[in-house]
């Protein structure tokens, strides 16, 4: 287990290094001189040169890459060209929106998907199963931004019970802030829930066919008890894998959903930074997102050990 974790940790670091290199190179290719963008077209050449050297833009690429990497490791993310504030501050501000949003979405999708998937498997080929499968087909096919617009139409335009966009901020109080995150979270959660429900269903169906479920039934457990006590925990192992993989889709979803709801989160920040050629912000955020994806999958590996004693090590007795 320890060896396994060390291997994963090494892979984690290598992936991030490669990611940082690629992001850096991509940003090098990106047209547009940030210094020129900051000063505008009428800037005098000598001011431009001064700013370029101040920003370190005149250094060789390799040196700039190492400087940037060193900054990342020591927690100095640099200063945004367009906002003029440290990137770290921008991130801190917006993570307070994006992180809760992602967490609510994950919780929602799990709470919807796992019961639905289990229900469908328990009622295999019965109306409930057909209904759940129909829901998942729809959920996968609906573009999340359109679903978001529909939610706005129903809850903000028609019933006017929830805001159509914007973020109240946590200073406004827990409930008002939560209210503004509710529709975006639902919009993010739907496609995830649809995929997760399918995976849960087929995983539970598969485990229900396992010998140990038959053993449990031979002990006298009812179908339902055998499902809950024996099949479910085994069935959750692949479900957790998919949840880890979904995290990256969730991040991608936030870019679009935060735009639909005009939420000042990380997704919208990165989108705007790309549009404004705020390269340092883009570089930092991409690495941050990639790191969080890899980190989540690292946590998933740890969860395996909780769910599956076979991975916990401990050799044969006797």
């Amino acid at each position, binding site marked *: 287990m320890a060896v396994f974790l060390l291997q994963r940790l090494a892979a984690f670091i290598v*992936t991030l290094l490669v990611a940082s290199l690629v992001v850096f190179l*991509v940003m090098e290719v990106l047209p547009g001189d940030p210094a020129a963008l900051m000063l505008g077209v009428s800037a005098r050449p000598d001011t431009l040169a001064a700013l370029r050297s101040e920003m370190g833009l005149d250094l060789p690429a390799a040196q700039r890459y190492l400087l940037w990497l060193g900054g990342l490791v020591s927690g100095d993310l640099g200063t945004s060209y367009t906002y003029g504030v440290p990137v770290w501050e921008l991130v801190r501000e917006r993570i307070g929106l994006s992180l809760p949003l992602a967490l609510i979405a994950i919780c929602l999708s799990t709470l919807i998907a796992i019961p639905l998937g289990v229900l469908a498997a328990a009622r295999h080929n019965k109306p409930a199963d057909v209904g759940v499968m129909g829901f998942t087909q729809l959920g996968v096919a609906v573009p999340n931004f359109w679903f978001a617009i529909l939610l706005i139409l129903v809850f903000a*335009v028609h019933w006017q019970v929830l805001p159509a966009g914007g973020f109240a901020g946590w200073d406004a109080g827990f409930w008002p802030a939560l209210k503004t995150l509710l529709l975006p979270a639902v919009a993010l959660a739907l496609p995830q829930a649809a995929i997760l429900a399918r995976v849960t269903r087929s995983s539970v*169906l598969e485990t229900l066919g396992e010998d140990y479920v038959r053993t449990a039934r031979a002990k006298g457990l009812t179908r339902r008890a055998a499902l809950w006590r024996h099949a479910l925990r085994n069935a959750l192992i692949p479900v957790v894998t998919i949840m880890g993989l979904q995290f*990256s889709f969730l991040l991608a979803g936030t870019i679009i959903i935060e735009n639909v709801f005009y939420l000042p989160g990380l997704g919208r920040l990165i989108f705007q930074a790309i549009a404004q050629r705020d390269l340092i912000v883009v570089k930092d955020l991409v690495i941050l997102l990639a790191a969080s994806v890899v980190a989540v999958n690292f946590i998933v590996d740890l969860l395996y050990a909780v769910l599956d004693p076979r991975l916990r090590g401990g050799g044969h007795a006797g």
Partner: protein
Amino acid sequence: MPGDIGPGEALAPAWREYWMRGRSSAGFVIGLAVTALLVAVALVSLVWTPYQVDVMDIPVKLQAPSAAHWLGTDQFGRDVLSRLMAGAVNSIAVSLVAVGIGAGLGVPLGALAAARRGIIEEVVMRFNDFTFAFPALLSAVMITAILGPGAVNSIIAIGIFNIPVFARLTRGASLSLWQRDFVLAARVAGKGRTRITAEHILPNIASLLIVQMTIQFALAILAEAGLSYLGLGTQPPAPSWGKMLNEAQTLMYLAPQLAIFPGLAIMGTVLGLNLLGDGLRDLLDPRLRRLR
């Protein structure tokens, strides 16, 4: 996976039998019908639409659906149905080329990785792992940001992120085929790796690839819509479903119906393609049927 199919059989699959079985699966029939309808609508729109797609007619702007304009008009008085029909061409073209890029580069890479193993395989697979750490949409946003927004650039962005999908699938399926007796027999007979790949490996994974292409096609439709919605894909005035939704969002209080139809078009298309893909998979691999 193409079960126990020998090389000869795979080259002459029992299409007639598939068709007979396919007719009994509701999902497959619906998927096929929806996909056929979509293609038909797109083809028709190339020669005829109820109104001209780009002609503005301000006096009839933001009309509700009526006999004259079946799905109403937008903020410039353009006919929504006509724009949806033309948008279908856009969606299909972008997705088709993007999946073509993905399969055209991914399949050879995957086949190469499986045939050569060693360092080539390592490089291909590490590239795969790496793209997996990046949300595809984020990467697409970055690529379109570098290349500038537009339909062609969104094709490239979506296409690039289809490459690892096909590379991974092709490698995985090919690897097990390389261990099979009929491939070993071909190797003993002195055939080269390229020839074996062309004659034995690819025909046997063709059905698998067709299913995956259908599914990736659906995902590409969604991705194209997302990029156009963000303003990074097809540029106005060319009609695209995603852009129509973006414009509709600002008019939500005035004309909520504008936000309905493009979404329904996207959903219907993706649903149809997914049903078709699932149906094909069931047909080509009946052993998996139980779990779906």
